[in-house]
């Protein structure tokens, strides 16, 4: 009897041990799938916030006012989105999401950000030297932006025992580069409640 039990236990242990070193499995999912793992800021938050913000900024009066007055679409540049939250958030993907939504709307025009501009200028300098006359792009023809989109991500974090509440507030401001007037302020809030287990 004891032998049997010991034998079974041994087999069990072996199976368990083998299972522990099984290889990594990969499952591809659609990028729109909502998957909350740790409760931290994730791709879903970035996507949701950027799309809502962009639909808000495009539906407000400043845009039509500008379009009517100047008979063209405004040129926008995305400035810094400061991360003032409790988490290390990759603001670059958030900014990229914003830019994509804005450009695809067709309502605004976009210019490259300051870091991108430097690279483009280097290329133009290079063309000056090496490109043929007919294909050369000359300096001093850049389009200046009319508005700058800036923002920040803030959080309020509260925890007691095994429950945590995370509150994110994302504020974006559209500033007229000519006179520093703020023409639009957008705000989006996300609240998450997390319960952590007692045992592992």
């Amino acid at each position, binding site marked *: 009897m004891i032998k049997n039990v010991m034998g079974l236990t041994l087999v069990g242990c072996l199976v368990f041990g083998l299972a522990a070193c099984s290889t990594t499995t990969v499952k591809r999912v659609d990028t729109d799938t909502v998957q909350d793992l*740790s409760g931290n800021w994730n791709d879903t938050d970035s996507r949701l916030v950027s799309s809502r913000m962009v639909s808000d900024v495009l539906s407000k009066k400043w845009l039509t006012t500008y379009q009517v007055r100047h008979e063209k679409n405004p040129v926008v540049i995305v400035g810094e989105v400061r991360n003032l939250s409790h988490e290390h958030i990759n603001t670059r993907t958030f900014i990229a999401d914003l830019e994509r939504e804005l450009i695809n709307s067709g309502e605004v025009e976009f210019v490259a950000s300051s870091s991108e501009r430097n690279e483009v200028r280097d290329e133009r300098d290079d063309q000056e030297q090496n490109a043929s006359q007919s294909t050369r792009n000359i300096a001093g023809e850049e389009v200046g932006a009319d508005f700058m989109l800036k923002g920040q991500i803030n959080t309020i974090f509260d925890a007691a025992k095994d429950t945590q509440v995370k509150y994110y507030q994302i504020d974006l401001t559209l500033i007229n580069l000519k006179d520093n007037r703020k023409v639009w302020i957008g705000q989006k809030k996300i609240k998450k409640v997390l319960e*952590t287990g007692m*045992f592992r």
Partner: protein
Amino acid sequence: MRVLFVGLTLAVLSGCASYSQSFQKVELLLSQQKPQEALLEVEKRADSGKNQLLYLLDKAMLQRMSGLFVESNATFEQAKILIEELRAVSLVEQAGALTINDSMMSYEGEDYEQIAVHIYAALNYIELGLWDEARVEALQVDVLQKKIAEDNDGVSIEDAFSRYLTGLIYEQGSEWSDAMIAYREAYRLYQKNKQVVPIFLKHDLLRLSRYLGLDHEYKQYQKSFELKKTLSLRKLKRQGEVVVLLHHSLAPIKRAENVFVMGESGVQHRVSLPAYYSRPSYVSHAQLWVGKTSIDMVVADDFDMLARKSLESHKGAMIARLITRAILKKNISNQVSDNNGSLAGFLVDVASMATETADTRSWLTLPKNILFARLPLQSGTYPAKLILFGDQGQVLETMPLADVEVKRGKKTMLERTYVRPYVSEKKE
């Protein structure tokens, strides 16, 4: 047969050298100023088991000593996730700790070590020029301190410097009221830990309380600090500031000590308790020179003290657990000798004695303490150096710092590590 099996298992388990013993080589390499080689040595011993956290912490620390700040922070992030996971209790490990020894539990890190993760992660971000990311760490320190206080019913060991550093980070972002709150908290903790309050903190409290119009508080600080002159915030904003940290020596090391304690029924039990041994203290004081100006550095963080206090605060619970375990082991051996004869019982006794080793794990690559100075200067580029003095007042070493660029209204931070060959260790 079964007895032999139990005996063997126990003997095998105790065969692992204690954590603190296996650290010698890393320490030697550090004392020879070869952090890259020390990093390779630690990476050889990659651990995904019960010491995984220690592995990550040592690795992150050696990465930053080797100048790999981005990699160091990636490792610190892994450590943070692991700490979160280990907050939940494992029943299997608890049972192991109760029957074999405390090293059967995953190392979760002492409170002060968990805070130090954020201190060093923040310093990494500052080294990379990412002050906003350092600010994230400052907020995380705040959350963690609150959690620790809640878990320990307010009697926790708290690191004053973590608060001081957060104050500095807020100041860099011109967030004066947040900085004031952090400095105030740092002041409270320095006093609570019976540490010398750094003179820089006194100036900071005076400067900010005055600027924020906290007149009553300002007068109180004036009275208790008796400092002659504090630079006003308006004047400081027109200058830059050099901030220097010297990570000095290494954190104390735990060794096992056998102690006999009296059980309930008057039976003596041999238990193995960890005790801290300090690592050498080379530098007794240090001076920062920037251009033609010099200032004395002060001890702003004292991991030696925090480690000892932390161990002391657990000691009661630890001894209770040790006695329970000793009684449990004795009962097993009694049962075995009743059923299988006294030789078998003796074997179990030997095995249980052999496995009764103290948990000597701790984060050993932390420094013993941090010497600190900040110096306001007009913007410009200055040559800078540190002069380190031994306890006889002799000059130990002059450490050149790269030319410092001071920018108006901004802080420039510089860090150095000082670990030298091992001389002797002192218990107290």
